[in-house]
């Protein structure tokens, strides 16, 4: 039956989804608590940032120091700067669950003995974990809104900007999950898949940081190869992500999801 794997995956993971959502909501809420209430306060943060080496700034996505002195930039840096690295943990765990975990512990056999085409298992699980990623993003949105209610006098954004901002974490999260799922169908073993996916994600992050520090064309090109670059930390809260970059990431994700299905359909399932 269509949708049963999707439903079952959601049924089994709603608790985890809740924990992740609450955690991310807290991280979205926290910067509002920390936000200075005077221009001088903001200036202090700018001064601190100026004192940091460029590499460190890039690691937190601070390519535009002046922006940290504005409320939107401040929240951007203290949330979007690192949130994808945290969500990478969710993405890798979810991506492994698509096929590698079941194949590794042997439950794939009994699952495949049911009247389920292999593609349905892969696709419905990918959809399920994308839905959960959406739920997590909505929790982040709730965190923003609660935070904004805390300091109404210091920041003035329409609510839908927060929504757009929260949704900006989705393309990266889903992309990382699908890449992991793809690697999982390729290598079959969960530990190997986790290590490879982790290396890919961390490698992309480093590429993005180096690309930001150095001003050579080569470095800029390298940055283009990193999926982290889709998220502009400074502007994410107000503007979300550009249609082009979201679309590009979506297309690459779909290609890899298709690749995962094809790989898994064709090969022997290990015991």
């Amino acid at each position: 039956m269509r949708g049963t794997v999707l439903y079952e995956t959601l049924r089994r993971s709603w608790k985890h989804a809740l924990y992740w959502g609450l955690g991310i909501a807290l991280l979205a809420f926290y910067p509002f608590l920390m936000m200075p209430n005077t221009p001088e306060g903001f200036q202090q943060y700018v001064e601190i940032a100026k004192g940091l080496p460029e590499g460190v700034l890039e690691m937190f996505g601070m390519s535009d120091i002046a922006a940290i002195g504005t409320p939107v930039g401040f929240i951007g840096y203290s949330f979007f700067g690192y949130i994808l690295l945290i969500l990478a943990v969710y993405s890798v765990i979810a991506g492994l669950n698509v096929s590698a975990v079941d194949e590794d512990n042997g439950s794939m056999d009994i699952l495949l003995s049911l009247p389920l085409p292999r593609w349905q298992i892969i696709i419905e699980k990918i959809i399920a974990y994308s839905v959960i990623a959406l739920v997590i993003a909505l929790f982040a949105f709730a965190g923003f809104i609660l935070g904004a209610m805390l300091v109404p006098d210091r920041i003035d954004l329409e609510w839908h900007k927060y929504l757009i901002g929260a949704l900006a974490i989705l393309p990266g999260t889903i992309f990382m999950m699908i890449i992991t799922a793809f690697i999982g169908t390729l290598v079959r073993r969960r530990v190997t898949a986790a290590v490879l996916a982790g290396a890919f994600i961390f490698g992309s992050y480093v590429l993005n940081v180096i690309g930001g520090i150095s001003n050579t064309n080569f470095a800029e090109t390298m940055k283009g190869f990193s999926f982290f670059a889709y998220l502009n930390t400074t502007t994410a809260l107000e503007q979300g992500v550009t249609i082009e970059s979201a679309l590009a990431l979506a297309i690459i994700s779909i290609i890899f999801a298709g690749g995962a299905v094809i790989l898994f359909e064709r090969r022997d399932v290990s015991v």
Partner: protein
Amino acid sequence: MSNTIIHTEALTKTYGVGTKKPFTALSNLNLNVVEGEIMGFLGPNGAGKTTTIRMLLDFIRPTSGHAQIFGKDVHEHSVDIHRRIGYLPAELNLWKNETSINIVRYFMRVRGGGDMAYVKQLAEQLEFDLNKRIRDYSTGNKRKIGLILALMHHPDLLILDEPTSGLDPLMQQVFNQLMLDFKAQGKTVFLSSHVLGEVQEICDRVAILRHGKLETVETVKNLTHVDFRWVTLTYNEPVRIADDLRAIRGVSDLKVTDNSVKFRITGDFHPLLEVATRQYVVNMTIQAPSLEEIFLAFYGENGNGKIAHNGKVIQSERELEAIS
């Protein structure tokens, strides 16, 4: 003419194709399982039983040859076929944090409906608690949930990989009854085992596999009708005529202990009786070979057992002479 439920043609599986050490686990298997029978698929460890079963279920793909179930190709029509199959893997691995009842419900949803009353009935028959988490079951109980999952949707064909391993004698009886009830509905069972004794009671036919090759397919009746017997003679004094007995056509494996002598005999008894009475006989017992012995004989002690066509097992040249 009965319907063929499982049909394989030159089914072959080589693992590690393209690597330095390719290994052919199954070669050229031609097998037919017909509707309404329970067929045992026997062979020692590593014979290729699980390999065959996993190909039938389309988990792994044949290197050459093909297989059909219900007259349909197992790969092309796997979803249709799986609707009508109950499968028990050799090693049942389920999601450890889920309860049995949740897994039952999941499988029902996937199959688009189910018969909860029947599940409850099975659980009762097997004395099984559906409400525990998988991680909390003993090995035997895990077999039971496996059986429930295989039977719950009233399939037409059961494919069971070593269903009897790990069952205590009582559960073995319950299992046998389940299988016979299943067969009584005109349905088919294909089950593997490496212990013939565990399945001899329920199987109509057995296929014997060895080193990836099908050695024989035989009815259990014929297999048990092998014409050799174990004879034990007890005399009133130490055995003196051992050499005379050994010289009889068809006698082998002779062993003397004090006043008695035990040996195998193939063929007629008359030559034996003439010699046996040269000493005073206190007692004589004749034993049909156990299925284990037949099984062993098929493989041979050192893997050099020879097999005649009509189910007769021949181990020595002398036996061959005796029956030919």
